């Protein structure tokens, strides 16, 4: 059997074990409602962080508008289940497609911009999306979209999280993924290798947006409600922080980043006034002392294997 297929099997096995373990603990109420909520939130945040990492970490584009696509997913899925009475799975697909389509439409013109300009444009676009939702009475306007059925449960959240991670990992490890990374490393050199940089940037942006939509669908169907104030640029910053904390260009890093942030904020839930301060200080200190994030652009398994095999840190990301 070839090595990649074997790794896939290991990943499926680990995923299944973690799922069954957590599920059993929840069913027996060893994990109470508070931590259940946080575990589901972690799953949603992993989806958001990994998908943003595809854009920011692997393709080297600088988007801080992920909340906008999440909002689209949250609202489109809610329209599907509440107004159209369609099943959840259709709503999720619709959320993915709608967010991806919008990502494509937005990506084509804006991805010509680079660096800070792209960042501020994506931030602006996500605010425009939010203001448009705010002004649409059909979806509840400023008071939010209420009465959304509580359809997101642990199996849904974990299953879709796992699927997202698996699919994005596969993209990154294919020829298409190499093209994305080439664009990140040196756009002109990538073009000189025959890679259509504009196409690949749009591709990453579209797929990333789609998965953000998926995360949004899970989000609104967990909290009974989709409200414009849930999708401000603060949310985008939050997702960006997870990605950078874990390491740009590392999928396992994004997973770790998302889990850490969710649990740190859960642990500080009793000290709300200190929560954001600690969060902010952590961010600043991390950027000053370990700007590449916890894992740099390496994957966890690779690094651990390297440590075991060679008995030391194989490559240091300076």
């Amino acid at each position, binding site marked *: 059997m070839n090595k990649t297929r074997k790794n896939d099997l290991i990943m499926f096995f680990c995923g299944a074990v973690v799922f069954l373990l957590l599920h059993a603990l929840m069913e027996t109420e060893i994990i109470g409602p508070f931590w259940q909520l946080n575990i589901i939130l972690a799953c949603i945040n992993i989806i958001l962080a990994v998908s943003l990492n595809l854009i*920011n970490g692997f393709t080297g584009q*600088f988007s801080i508008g992920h909340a906008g696509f999440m909002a689209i997913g949250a609202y489109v899925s809610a329209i599907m289940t509440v107004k159209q009475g369609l099943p959840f799975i259709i709503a999720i697909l619709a959320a993915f497609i709608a967010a991806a389509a919008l990502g494509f439409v937005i990506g084509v*013109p*804006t991805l*010509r*911009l680079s*660096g*800070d*300009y792209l*960042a*501020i*444009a994506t*931030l*602006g*676009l996500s*605010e*425009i999306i939010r*203001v*448009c939702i*705010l*002004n649409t009475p059909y979806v509840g306007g*400023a008071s939010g979209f209420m009465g959304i059925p509580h359809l997101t449960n642990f199996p849904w959240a974990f299953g879709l999280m796992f699927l997202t991670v698996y699919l994005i990992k596969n993209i990154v490890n294919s020829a298409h993924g190499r093209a994305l990374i080439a664009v990140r490393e040196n756009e*002109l050199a990538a073009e000189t290798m025959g890679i259509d940089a504009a196409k690949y940037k749009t591709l990453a942006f579209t797929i990333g947006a789609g998965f953000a939509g998926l995360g949004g669908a899970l989000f609104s169907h967990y909290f009974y409600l989709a409200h414009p104030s849930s999708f401000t*640029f603060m949310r985008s*910053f939050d997702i*960006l*922080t997870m990605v*950078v904390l874990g390491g*740009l260009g590392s999928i396992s890093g994004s997973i770790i980043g998302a889990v850490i942030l969710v649990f740190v904020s859960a642990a500080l839930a009793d000290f709300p*006034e*200190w*929560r*954001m*301060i600690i*969060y*902010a*200080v*952590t*961010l*600043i200190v991390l*950027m*000053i002392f370990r*700007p590449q994030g916890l894992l740099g652009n390496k994957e966890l398994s690779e690094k651990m294997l390297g440590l075991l095999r060679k008995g030391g840190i194989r490559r240091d990301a300076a």
Partner: protein
Amino acid sequence: MDSSSFLSQFIQQMINGISLGSIYALIALGYTMVYGILKLINFAHGDIYMLGAYAGFFAAAVLRLSFLPSLLFAMLAAALAGMVIERLAYRPLRRAPRITALITAIGVSFFLDYTLILFVSPQPRTFPAIFESEIYRFYGIIINSQQILIFAVSLLLMAFLTYIVQHTKVGKAMRAVSYDTDTARLMGVNVDKVISWTFALGSALAAAAGVLVGIYYNSIDPLMGMMPGIKAFVAAVLGGIGIIPGAMAGGLILGVVEAMASGFLSSTFRDAVAFSILILILLFKPSGLLGKNTREKV
């Protein structure tokens, strides 16, 4: 709407827009100066504006100072805060990738907001009436004396800044550093000092904006800096980031367009209009209204 009431509505919104735009311009100046030198979107700049408003509040409500001393107090306090932030948070990252510095700036922004909330609570405060509001009416158009104050103070400060940048030694050093940091250093410019000065000046202007807004709206709160901060950045991009007159023009244009949008459309669309302008300018003239296009050397 008949034509005369349209005209008066137009002029009214123009006046509102100019005073709002002056505020944006004052904040945008700090953004643009910092960006011009460090290529950093200082997301914490909006929070310096908020900090300035609170410093003004402290001077007026606690120290019972009048308008001008309060304004100066706030500007001085913010200048100090700006320099400290630069020294502690941004200086260690001078050579780091830009995303690192940007995320640090976001961190600083959160830190300022929530530390202040810890001390003063998230509740809005009523800003003391240190400048009387008088209403003047001409042919159905209302002008508030505070609007005139905002415009006059902004104009004065901008003139002052222009003088500093164009005619003083520090100003020359600032221009040199923003043009080419390494060469400026080789020419004996103390780059760290110049960057400190830039933060001080930018922060002082933002603080002045904070105090003026406090006077105008009577109310300040710890999260007041978020939106105006980002809007001011839009204004800076609109005028051409790194260009001082660009920030002034961008701020005024943005203020007027927003006022028109809320006057003629709906106030809820105001933010969308601002960001739409941003997108359009980025797509069609990313270097801004007053900027020059550059090309990468291959």
